[in-house]
């Protein structure tokens, strides 16, 4: 499928503050047709009228309409998929990092992705929920469908700020205990230092009722360190400081980071959780396809 990568470039998208507009640009503009039509059939919820075609079940013919207008029309119903899409967003201070090579912070990038996911899911008729946290829950919207709810999600995303230390353990526990049935849970975080504890807490994903996708958002600086001869690094979620020369430690750092990413991916695979890592200078298409592929089949 052709993808207008320029429209998906965060360099352009970062300047759009309105998530409603952003999602329409991304989903309707750059990824036309990525969403399938809704499945219509014998669900419980009336969807629309359509012209009667030969072979339609006569039970579906609306006789009242026929009596009034003399036309045969069949009622169609929307299938009740019972799917909930839960977007889980890490808003700890480390997510506020924005290196010189990025046009937006990690949190902003994750929010843009989350907004697109919510928009797509809503268009598909799924219920969408949002859970944002750092040291405590910052936003928690239970899954619902409809444009009004979608706007509430966009508003909540716009109000998020990166601050506080992360407390994955307590927040994930709170979330997993309150998950509704048959859910797709999308985690958006940098997952720093969480390669051991994260799989433990995502064991619920091994159940057939849940699908889980972990989208890791990193800044390019986190992959290979910033370009500077000497820096005094200060931890964003702590008080620890280290003075060092990035060029001198770059190779060791990259090796350590790669090892961390591999272990994270492996550990998540053990609990049947899909994992995708991307940097904030990458366009949004890859992450969107991954999301769509999981929920709505390969496109």
């Amino acid at each position, binding site marked *: 499928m052709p993808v207008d990568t320029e429209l998906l470039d965060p360099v352009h998208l970062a300047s759009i503050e309105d998530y409603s507009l952003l999602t329409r640009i991304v989903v309707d503009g750059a990824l036309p047709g990525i969403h399938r039509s809704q499945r219509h059939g014998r669900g419980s919820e009336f969807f629309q009228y359509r012209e009667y075609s030969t072979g339609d079940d006569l039970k579906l013919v609306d006789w009242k309409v026929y009596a009034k207008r003399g036309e045969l029309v069949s009622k169609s119903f929307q299938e009740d998929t019972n799917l909930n899409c839960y977007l889980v967003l890490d808003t700890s201070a480390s997510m506020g990092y924005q290196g010189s090579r990025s046009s937006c912070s990690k949190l902003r990038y994750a929010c843009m992705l989350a907004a697109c996911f919510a928009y797509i899911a809503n268009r598909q008729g799924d219920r969408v929920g949002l859970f944002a946290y750092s040291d405590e829950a910052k936003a928690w919207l239970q899954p619902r469908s409809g444009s009004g709810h979608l706007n509430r999600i966009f508003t909540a995303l716009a109000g998020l700020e990166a601050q506080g230390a992360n407390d994955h353990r307590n927040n994930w526990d709170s979330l997993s205990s309150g998950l509704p049935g048959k859910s797709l849970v999308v985690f958006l975080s940098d997952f720093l*230092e969480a390669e051991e504890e994260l799989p433990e807490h995502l064991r619920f994903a091994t159940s057939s009722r849940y699908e889980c996708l972990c989208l890791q958002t990193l800044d390019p600086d986190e992959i290979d360190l*910033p370009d500077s001869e000497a820096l005094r690094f200060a931890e964003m979620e702590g008080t620890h400081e280290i003075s060092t020369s990035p060029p001198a430690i770059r190779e060791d*750092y990259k090796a350590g980071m790669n090892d961390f990413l591999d272990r994270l991916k492996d550990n998540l695979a053990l609990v049947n959780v899909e994992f995708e890592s991307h940097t904030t200078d990458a366009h949004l298409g890859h992450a969107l396809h991954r999301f769509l592929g999981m929920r709505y089949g390969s496109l």
Partner: protein
Amino acid sequence: MALWAFAALALPVLAHMAYRQVTNRYQFPSLRFIKPARIPRTGRKTPTDWLLLLARIMLFALLACLFADPHWKEPSPLNDTKIGRETVIALDLSPSMSGWDGLFEAKNRIDGLLEEIEGQVGYVGFCSGVLEEIAPTDQIELVRSAIAQSTTGYGTGNPQAGIDRAVKLFSLGAKERNLVVLSDFQRSDWQTTYRRLDEEGISVDLRSVGHSRKVGGKREGNLSLAEAKAAPAGLGKVRAWTVVRNSSNELVETSISIEAGGEIRREKQIVVPANGATQAQFILPEGDFASAILKLTDQDEFAEDNERHLWLKAPPPRRFGFWSSTNENKETIEEREFLKVAIESAGDNGWNRWLSVQENADGLRLGDLSSELDLLIVTGIGSWFADEKLEETMKAYLKGGGFVIVTPSEPFAASVSILRNSDLLDLDFVRVVGGAGATREPFRISALETSSHLAKTFSGKAARDLYLTGIYRYGLVRPAEAEGVYTPLQSTEGNPFVVQRISPEGGKLTFFPYRLNIRWTDLPMRNSFLPLLMELVRGSKGVVDRSWPRLESGETLVDGEETFRAEKPGTFRFRDRFVEVVLAPSESIAEVIEPSETRESLGTGFIPEKVIASGEDLEEEESKSLWLWFAIAAVILFIIENLWSKPRRTTVLEKETVNA
């Protein structure tokens, strides 16, 4: 010492700084894979870094100089001549020194002093300012002669001016500076004087004179005319009134006289209680004499305050006139005549009187703006005003600070239209209120705003009389909101009863929205009417204050471009004003300040050792500290050093070069 210390410190610090790598604090999500590493040194010997090193060396050199507190010494001719001892004699020549033989005693003591003083001698004679001065000189006779000829001034004594000037007379190169002050140390003059002369290296010698009759904190034996004024005393008579104060601890019997036309006209005995006062007055025929002198006949310790000059002339009257229609109706004639009589009876029993000068008002009506008129009353403004095109004349009169009272005519709406169309007063006419029912309850004036000008005048009974005023009919008008437009009087319903427009030049136009006769209001019959009229006039530049100005010696009076400076007490003419100049009452005060208080204000006379140790310290006053300049240069260099030594980003190109 500071230079050596910094030189010793600078070497190791410079060595350290030359290889210092400044690291910026950089917030990063996780330090998990970040390891400490040896920070590359910047002290590579490249030409750029040599310049940085040079900047750092200069910075340290500047800091060393900064703490050494360098001074720039300007060549001063005074510094070249090393003068030994200088003495400046400060002599109080305020009027009070003429009493109690203060000046006589001072001169005698100075004579003796000049025989003893070594080195150069200077002189400052002061009253309200410096009257005479001689810089320190070897010519002692010159100083002696000047002091011998000195006389007291008339202004209020201002020792601060004398002391400040005396200090400036000292040469900077003088090794010893002495100030000798001779004064009666009258409390009113000296109580605010302050200058720590000891901290300036000047020794002070305070010598009290004129204290021969000092008892406790004050001097005995003085009677003074504390106050005097002339006022009308019935038809054709004038009263000269005075207050005599006794500053002694004993009752005094004396006599007081009034001298006019070169002769003593009256004399009377008075008894003044100890530390008290008594009044005396003389009645003289008005017009016989323009001025008079009140005199205490017995001499006392301070003669200057035994006389008081005063004018017996009444100030010229304020002039007013009328404009009205040439075809006056009965109502207008009644109103005009009533106002004429009422205003002429205003004033201080004819002393501050108003005079109807209709010819001046007529002259103004013909366009002669030079016509002298303090108040113009337009009774029954109507179409005649517009027909004669009087609005421009009135505007010019108001612009010149004139004061105008306007009453309406009938139809009322036409009066309002004329005022509005001629741009004199922007009013909207609503209707005439109260015209139909003659027997109805009259309209009342509402309570004056407490902060208003009128409220200060009308209080108690006066206010009650004003509030009892009945207004039977009035034109309901709405003045446009504009700058300078006020409604000083309002009805209890909040409708304007008087509308005033004050022009920026001070002219006032006052509009009564009713006629000032008994058919419209009983206001003209009220006791409060004339005070109200006068209060509405008061404060306007158009009405000249006719009371005679009284000045103390040393004060000035400005009228237009001319200035009158009061010197000797007496009566004087200044333009069309009659001015009384009096001796400052504070000079009659007998209290003297204790020497200990004055010493505290001027320094005890003890010269700190470091000040008199050598003349070098005195010379330092002439040199200018360069501390600020060095500080500025050091800050600039520090900023440059910081910017220069900031870690720079490794550009992609540089990286590729390094990798290659």
